[in-house]
Structures are given as C-alpha cells and as structure tokens.
C-alpha cells in the first residue's frame, strides 16, 4: 500500500458540551473515490471544515501528502494540494467564469502578486483557464459574469476552480446541492471526468449519486464513524439504516 494522500487520525471536536467530531479517522489513497454520508447533524460539514482549516480540531492530526497540516491555515493547505468546493455556491461574483478559473490558476502558479501583465492575467494563465473551462463544458458561457450564469453552471465553475488548483485531494461538499434531479447527470458527468489520480472525498445527501460515484463509503452519525466499506456492504448495513431512520424506543 502506498502512503495515504489524506489521513485523519482520531479527530476530536466539540462546541461547548456538544461533541461534533468523536474520534474520527479516515484515510484516502491516491485516486480514491470516497463518499462521506450521514444524516443531518452528523457532523459532516464540521469535519470538512477541520480538513480544510476553517476549524481546528481539539485533538488528533490531519496529514496531507505526508505533511502534518493540523495547525496550518487554509491557504497553506490549498498550496499543498487540497482543494474544495462549497455547499452554497461561493464565487468571485464580479468576475466572469473564465476569470474565476484564471484567478485560481494564477494563485496555483504563485503569480497572484505579479505586476508583469496589465491585461488582468498573463496569456498562458488565460489559455489554461480556457482549457479547463472547455473540459467542464463552460467555454461557451465563460465570458459571462458568474452571477449571470444558471445555477448548474455555477456549480460547474466551482468544480472548475477546484480543478484549476491541480489538487492531490478534492473535498466536494454537496456538489449537486440545490440542483433539480435532472441536472444531477451534468454534475455526475463532470465528476466522472475528474483526473483519476486525484483523491476525492464526496459529501453528499443524494444516495443515487453517492452509489454511482463512490468506491468506498464512510457513514457518520452523531460525530462518530458507524460504518465503512464498499457501497454494497453499506447498503445492507443495519446500523446505517437505524441511523438514517431513527431507532424505535
């Protein structure tokens, strides 16, 4: 086995007396397609926030490509290869789709402080951004302001920005959130075309999407990992069913 590219060990987090992450461990290998599911309030988003650096766990460690990032700020983790999208679309609203992607490309190349070009972005950055947009089927609307795009297209811009960072690990927090079921195919199609070596952690409520995409699933309930395994095993797991449907007592 190669070393995992993302490794959470014994993470603990609580708000006051409320334990939201209870001894969670998780590891993703290169090219993983891992889904994190769980009922509302299971602590999924809190866990994502700890991985990306918005929250700091009380105990436990997070290693990214072998580096302990537990105490690193968010932007340093991004530079080490961690990209995320946001559950609620979260873009640079006064820029076009192309420019949103170009901003990410420029940062990844460490050219965010550059004063060398006076055309917004150097032409090689622009070409890369356009190329990524084309791969995400955004080339035709790339010139529009992201705030003028359809919601589904905005979700694709989110993914394109994450791709532009050339991550080792991608955290996708409900990439299909807020989309009608008919548009899920578009997102799935985009997910299928993610580079194969990228490890993906998908947090999602939509079960058909999860079972189509994931090769391994972790189930979280009340801050704890209650099951982990291949999709078929999870589908038949009694504890998972209980967690989702509640216990009769």
């Amino acid at each position: 086995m190669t070393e995992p590219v993302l490794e959470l060990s014994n993470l603990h987090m609580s708000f006051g007396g409320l334990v939201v992450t209870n001894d969670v461990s998780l590891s993703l290998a290169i090219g993983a397609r891992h889904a994190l599911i769980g009922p509302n309030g299971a602590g999924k988003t809190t866990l994502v926030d700890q991985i990306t650096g918005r929250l700091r766990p009380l105990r436990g460690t997070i290693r990214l490509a072998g580096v302990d990032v537990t105490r690193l700020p968010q932007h340093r983790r991004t530079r080490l290869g961690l990209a995320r999208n946001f559950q609620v679309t979260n873009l640079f609203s006064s820029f076009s789709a192309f420019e949103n992607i170009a901003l990410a490309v420029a940062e990844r190349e460490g050219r965010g402080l550059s004063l060398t070009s006076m055309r917004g972005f150097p032409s090689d950055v622009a070409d890369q951004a356009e190329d990524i947009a084309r791969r995400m089927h955004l080339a035709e609307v790339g010139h529009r302001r992201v705030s003028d795009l359809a919601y589904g297209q905005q979700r694709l811009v989110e993914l394109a920005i994450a791709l532009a960072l050339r991550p080792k690990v991608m955290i996708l927090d409900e990439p299909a959130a807020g989309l009608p079921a008919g548009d899920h195919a578009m997102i799935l199609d985009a997910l299928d075309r993610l580079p194969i070596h990228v490890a993906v952690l998908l947090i999602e409520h939509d079960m058909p999407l999860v079972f189509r995409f994931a090769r391994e699933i972790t189930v979280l309930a009340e801050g704890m990992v209650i099951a982990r395994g291949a999709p078929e095993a999870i589908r038949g797991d009694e504890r998972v069913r209980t967690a989702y449907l509640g216990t009769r007592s």
Partner: protein
Amino acid sequence: MSDDVSTAERRVPFAASLRSKHRLRPAELLPLVAVAIVPLLGSGYYPLATQIAITVIFGLSLDLLVGYAGIVTLGHGIFFGVGAYASGIASVHGWGDPVSGLFIGAAAAAVVGVVQGFVVLRTARFTLLMLTLCSVFLVSEVANKAGWLTGGADGLTGVMTGPLLGVWTFDLDGRTGYLFSATVFVLVWIGLRGLVHAPFGQSIMAIRDNPGRAEAIGMAVRPRLLIVYTVSAAIAGTAGALQAEIDQFAGLKNVGFEISATILVMLALGGTGRLYGAMAGPAVYLIAQDLLAKINPAMWQLWLGLLIVATVLFVPGGLSSLADVFRGRGKR
C-alpha cells in the same frame, strides 16, 4: 438576439477578451487633457488646479482601498497627515528638496500603514471602520500634543521648500507647484492603473468579492490586504507631503477626521472602484466649492451638500458611472 451574442462570445478566445477588457480607452486620456489645459487658462487657476491634483492623488489612494480591496476606512487622513508632517519636519531640519521630500512622506506613511494595518485588518466591516476612526483621533491627538515635533495646534512653521530638481523655484503664481503636482498625479495614476489591471490587482478584487473563497484558492488574504493597505498609505503620504511642500506648512487640518471623511465623500461623489471616480469626485467637489464660495460666501456648504445628496439620489454609482450610461446608450 441572445443567440447572436452567444455565438459571438464563442468565437472570442479568453486571452483576446482580456485584452479588450483591459485596453486603454480613449476616454481614459481625458485627465491628461485636463492637466494640459490648466496652463492655458492663465495663472489665476494654478492654486485651485494644484489643490485638485493633490486631492486626486489622495483620492486614488483611498479608491485602491475602498473600491478595489473593499476596505472602507474613516481614517485615511492619518497617512496624508503623516506624509505632510514627515516632509515638513525634514524641511524644517534643512532637507527641503521637494522630490526626495515626497519619498520621505511616502516612507513615513508606509511605516505607519504597516503597523496600523496589521492591527485593524484583523477585523472587517463595522469593527474595522470603528478602529480606523479611533486611529485617526489617536494620531491627531498625538500631532496636537507633540508640539516639540509638530508645532502642536499652531502647526509646523519654518517649512522651506527648495527649488525643484535644484532649478525651478516654487514661485508665487504657483506654476512650478502645479506642474510638479500634476506630474506626480500622472505618475501615480499610471502606476495604479498598472497595479489594478495586473494579476495582483485582480486578486485584490477577488478578495473584495469573497475573502473566504480567496483563502480557499490559496491566497494569504490578510498579508495581501496588508500589502495593498501599505501601498495605499504610501500614496496618501505622497499626497500629504506634496501638500506640505506646496503650502510650506503642515498642521492639524492635514491629519484629522475631517479630511478623512471629506475624501470619502469626494470618492463617493465620483464613484469607487474605477480610478476615474477618484479623479472626477475631488475635481467636481473642489470646483463646485470654489464657484459656490464666490457666489454665496455664507451658505456654500449648503449648496455643496445639496449637490452631493442629489448625486447620491440620482447617480448612486457616482459621477464616473455616468460613463456606463453614455456607453450603453451609444450601443443601442
């Protein structure tokens, strides 16, 4: 109709559309025309035009913060004042060279900017606004009490501005002062235009749009804001130093809350986030003030206030946003 637009869009590569978005438009040269016209008007207009040039430099520095970085501050007068005092104090101690005096003012303001920015940029919005307000009161009180350095409430007397580049003296009709101020304005404008159209400027606007997202694509948001804050402070310090050199005086009026608030009003009048608002605002404000004070010396502030209220009501984007209206109409 919309189909036509999308096919047209499809044919334009991104790099080409960036070129056209960031190209120099003919209208952007209007400030240069204005600068060139002033000497033709006769020497009576030099003092007003000089004051406009200085205020525009100050306004540009504020637009970089308010319009591009999204940092609204009520304390930008600090940097103007520190620049004015620094070059004034240097002059009192025998260093009256006007060009290096600007660098002294800029450097002093940049140092204060780094320190103050490091503290206030840890906050955002309303808290930040209050902290900048506190800072401006703090600094003006220091300027008031440290009489041995600043001359206190009487101001700094004995400022002597030497000849420009050792050749041109600052004469009474104000020609040298005007040409010097106008030159500095043009240089600052060229520099800032380059900055905001560069990847650095784009990233600053990205932070203004969405700091959380900016962090998530790998930007060190706070350090980057501190860089912009310091650049802005240095430019404001340059404007202040210029003011002290032209007036051969620096006093409490250069540093307080009033000048901080006035420049923000001027910027709102002109419009933020496009550099040209920072030129139109101070120019219109100061020209209107000049005219109104001649027509009605007792009540000019009332008329100026009404002008500003009318602008906010009918042109909420500021005077420079009228350019979009004209451009939109031209296309139709």
